[in-house]
């Protein structure tokens, strides 16, 4: 049994920043370090679900009533929607393509920012998991507000590009605007993904990010690596697909940093 469940979300309104890949691989790395993990796929693109399950099963579940969309729509306890993955320490709540219309479902609900938080309440009370990781869609609407309100910490993967940093600034503006709704949420850090060491611009991005005054940037950054695409092709986290790959090693290193940061924050 976990001593306390830490809830982390992966948020960036810019698409293709590596949220799902980072969530999937940190989840696996956490389990390899001995932690029990629940993954929640909050994105209609189903990518986190695909990282752990066969495509047919993901699509079948997406059409059924056993997914996150149904749980949120009917405001259910999320315990009933948890599925076991092939890995003993990792469970998941799968998504649905219908998540694209979740905003409409939320609109008429009372205290609509807290539906996910309320759905997780019993799971958190049971202390069954050390970590709950929530993947989010590339938007900043009411559903992402739900994810932020349900989380203790937020990690933002960002691509090393001018538009990546522009999107990051927009995200921080948004966070500043909604601070009164999510006063306890802490930004755990920004993580550079898809880093291409052949490009000079990577150095420029790192130099720019060093100018951040109050925001932690993870020392580990995830470099471009075809093992990630191959692992996606095979429906497995990269550490399981090819443990010796560069990205598997980097994700493990990033995960250790995440754990260390969470432990530090707990002490404060």
């Amino acid at each position, binding site marked *: 049994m976990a001593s306390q469940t830490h809830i982390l979300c992966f948020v960036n309104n810019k698409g293709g920043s590596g949220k799902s890949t980072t969530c999937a691989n940190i989840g696996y790395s956490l389990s390899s370090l001995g932690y029990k993990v629940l993954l929640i796929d909050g994105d209609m693109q189903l990518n986190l679900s695909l990282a752990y399950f066969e495509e047919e099963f993901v699509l079948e579940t997406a059409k059924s009533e056993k997914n996150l969309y149904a749980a949120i729509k009917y405001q259910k306890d999320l315990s009933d929607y948890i599925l076991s993955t092939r890995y003993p320490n990792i469970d998941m709540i799968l998504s649905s393509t219908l998540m694209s219309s979740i905003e409409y479902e939320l609109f008429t609900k009372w205290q609509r920012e807290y539906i996910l938080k309320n759905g997780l309440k019993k799971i958190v009370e049971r202390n069954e998991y050390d970590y709950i990781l929530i993947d989010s869609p590339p938007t900043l609407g009411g559903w992402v507000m739900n994810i932020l309100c349900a989380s203790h910490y937020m990690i933002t993967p960002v691509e090393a590009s001018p538009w990546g940093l522009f999107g990051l600034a927009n995200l921080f503006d948004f966070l*500043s605007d909604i601070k009164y709704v999510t006063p306890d949420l802490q930004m755990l850090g920004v993580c550079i993904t898809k880093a291409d060491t052949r490009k000079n611009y990577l150095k420029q991005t790192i130099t720019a990010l060093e100018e951040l005054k109050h925001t932690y940037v993870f020392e580990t950054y995830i470099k471009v690596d075809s093992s990630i695409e191959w692992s996606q092709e095979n429906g497995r986290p990269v550490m399981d697909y090819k443990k010796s790959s560069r990205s598997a090693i980097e994700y493990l290193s990033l995960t250790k940093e995440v754990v260390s940061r969470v432990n530090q924050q707990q002490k404060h």
Partner: protein
Amino acid sequence: MSISSKSINRINKAVETQNTPAKVALIPPPKTSEQDASSTEASETSGITQKLPDYLL
């Protein structure tokens, strides 16, 4: 200034805004004649302190 530099400045500004303590509105209760006679300090500490979201201030 490049997009990257401007973005970093925006992020720093946004985080500084977040770290600013919440605005606090002091709503003092109606004064009685006795309270009028008491010290200013006493009347301030007896006020209701309520946090209000920015958009209401």
